[in-house]
């Protein structure tokens, strides 16, 4: 019996980690900053490829993953400076620009690195409970997802940067008038967002096939989570992920992956219909 209980928790943790890690970066870039970043998946791919490249050079996995996230973050800062900055007042054009970027990046990777890269293998470690065996690394992913949420909370709620960043997102002109360097805030926020996307790719790299279009498998889940979460990263994304993970896990377990995916998307449609501002609109109102 305890094996069944644990397995339910494990499956929930697995879906939850996938949703949080793939959505965390987008929650900042899209949820807070309002940039529809169609290249989100490519930042995830970047994190995965850098991780695999570094591991093949002999760098230990954990360090490679941190470096990969930093790389994606730095590239994000550069992309913000060169492209995204010009589109803050034209959100639909930013969609086109980042989509173009995404096409260019995937095709360039295909031409330069090739159509498939050999994987590095998931770190050893599995354990058995009852008749089931589980991969330890999946629990590490869950731990990382919780740590990412905690880290975001501290950065955006407890630091001076966080206060200024939130002020800038709410009313850039007013924040500027009060002396905040909004350009730099946007840059850093975008970098944190893409860095978290890179972290997602880095963490999932050992468990997946590496191809240039691999980011696409994360994109639907990440947008869906952020959209139903709403504008508030912390009060929106986390409950959205919990909610979607419960639905998906239950349906996956009883009816298989197809129904799991359909059910999750139906739930999303219903929520957007009832709460167009996302879950955080309710939670924030209640909180005040």
């Amino acid at each position: 019996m305890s094996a069944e209980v644990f397995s339910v928790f494990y499956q929930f943790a697995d879906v939850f980690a996938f949703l949080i890690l793939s959505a965390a970066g987008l929650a900042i870039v899209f949820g807070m900053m309002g940039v529809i970043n169609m290249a989100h998946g490519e930042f995830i791919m970047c994190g995965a490829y850098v991780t695999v490249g570094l591991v093949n050079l002999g760098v230990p996995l954990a360090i490679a993953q941190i470096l990969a996230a930093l790389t994606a973050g730095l590239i994000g800062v550069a992309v913000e400076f060169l492209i995204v900055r010009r589109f803050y007042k034209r959100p639909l054009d930013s969609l086109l620009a980042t989509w173009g970027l995404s096409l260019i990046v995937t095709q360039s990777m295909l031409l330069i690195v090739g159509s498939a890269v050999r994987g590095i293998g998931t770190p050893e470690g599995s354990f058995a409970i009852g008749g089931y065996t589980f991969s330890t690394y999946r629990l590490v992913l869950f731990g990382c997802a919780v740590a990412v949420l905690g880290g975001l909370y501290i950065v955006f709620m407890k630091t001076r940067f966080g206060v200024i960043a939130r002020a800038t997102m709410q009313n850039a002109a007013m924040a500027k008038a009060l002396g905040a360097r909004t350009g730099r805030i946007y840059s850093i926020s975008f970098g944190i967002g893409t860095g978290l996307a890179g972290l997602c790719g880095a963490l999932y790299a050992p468990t997946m096939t590496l191809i240039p279009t691999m980011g696409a498998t994360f994109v639907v889940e990440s947008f869906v989570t952020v959209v139903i979460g709403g504008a508030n990263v912390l009060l929106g994304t986390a409950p959205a992920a919990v909610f979607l993970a419960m639905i998906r896990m239950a349906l996956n377990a009883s009816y298989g992956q197809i129904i799991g995916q359909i059910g999750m998307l139906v739930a999303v449609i219903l929520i957007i219909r009832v709460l167009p501002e996302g879950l955080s609109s309710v939670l924030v109102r209640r909180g005040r």
Partner: protein
Amino acid sequence: MNSGRKLGMVLLGAMLGTAAGVGVARAAEPLLKVGLLEDVSGDLAFMGMPKLHGSQLAVEEINKSGGILGRQIELIHLDPQGDNARYQEFGRRLLNRDKVDVLIGGITSASREALRPIVDRTSTPYFYTNQYEGGVCDASMISMGAVPEQQFSTLIPWMVEKFGKKVYVIAADYNFGQISAEWNRKIMKDLGGEVVGEEFIPLGVSQFAQTIQNIQKAKPDWLLTINVGAAQDSFFEQAAAANLNLPMGSSIKVMLGFEHKRFKPPALNNMHATANWFEEIDTPEATDFKKRWHAKFPDELYINDMGYNAYNALYMYKALVEKAKSIKLDDMRKVIATGDACIDAPEGKVCINPKSQHTSHRMRLISVGPKHEVKVEKDYGTIQPYWLGEIGCDLTKKNDKDQYTPSHLPKKS
């Protein structure tokens, strides 16, 4: 001649996925136009790239040795990027605008079924070069790959005998996966086995923790893995990490997706497949073929069976046209009807079956070891694509233009 610039244009054209049709005519005879639709970008690019390469190698060799009926071949390749709508659009363009003499290609069965009605409205022959779930009875189509009676009727009884009667199926959720699963049900029933679970996975799904647990709950003796595409292949890595450790069988793994080259050992340990081609074949003919391939494409990770079949397709076309002394489909089909449409392929002699227009193949059962070494477990010799003929498809008499499955058989007339 500024052939350098022309080559550049060809490359540029291929990159942009547009018509790359610039050839240099050597003889006075007009060029033979070969239309090729293969994905070299998108999710299936890693499988499609060897198909393009196999076609290019065959065209180069045939052109060097004098072409077909003295005519040089012009290969027009378009990249549908794994999108079925683009398959249709590009198929129409090749057939109606470029007026190709033969159409080759398509990776997934979904793309083939998207193309077939368009081909059927023309009198252009179409070669499908993949192994697939079988059953297409269509006079316009010549199938070069292996079919279930060559792959499943060999593999499944062997797996049952060796590992046990309980199987769990993981299949991609589209026509290939659904019909292959149906074949498995039929063969397992005939053998007195039991399908303890079947899971159909939408394309693009990459997370399998729940599937792995469902498998452990059902306690099968072995797995039939007919999952498709890079995302779904992540199953193997995740199953190995969770120490699932079950024997696996498949009609598409190893020789087609070269998962044993793409994943770190031992993710593919204990995988079994039946194949007419895999790169590890070491007969003299195969070795010679591999040498020519790697000389032209030194970076090829693996020569997969699709790429190999794509190469054979051009030689089969050449054989048919030269025996018929005509490039008309009807004349070529008269040659097929004699049962004498054969080529000496790197696997050995292969022939087109007159009733179904599918190809006979020498089938071997291979297994993958813990270090991802490939071993031949059993050699079945040449197996005919007999199933369609048995159920009543006879293209020498009637063009059904249909795809049959064990549960969708021709109406008795």
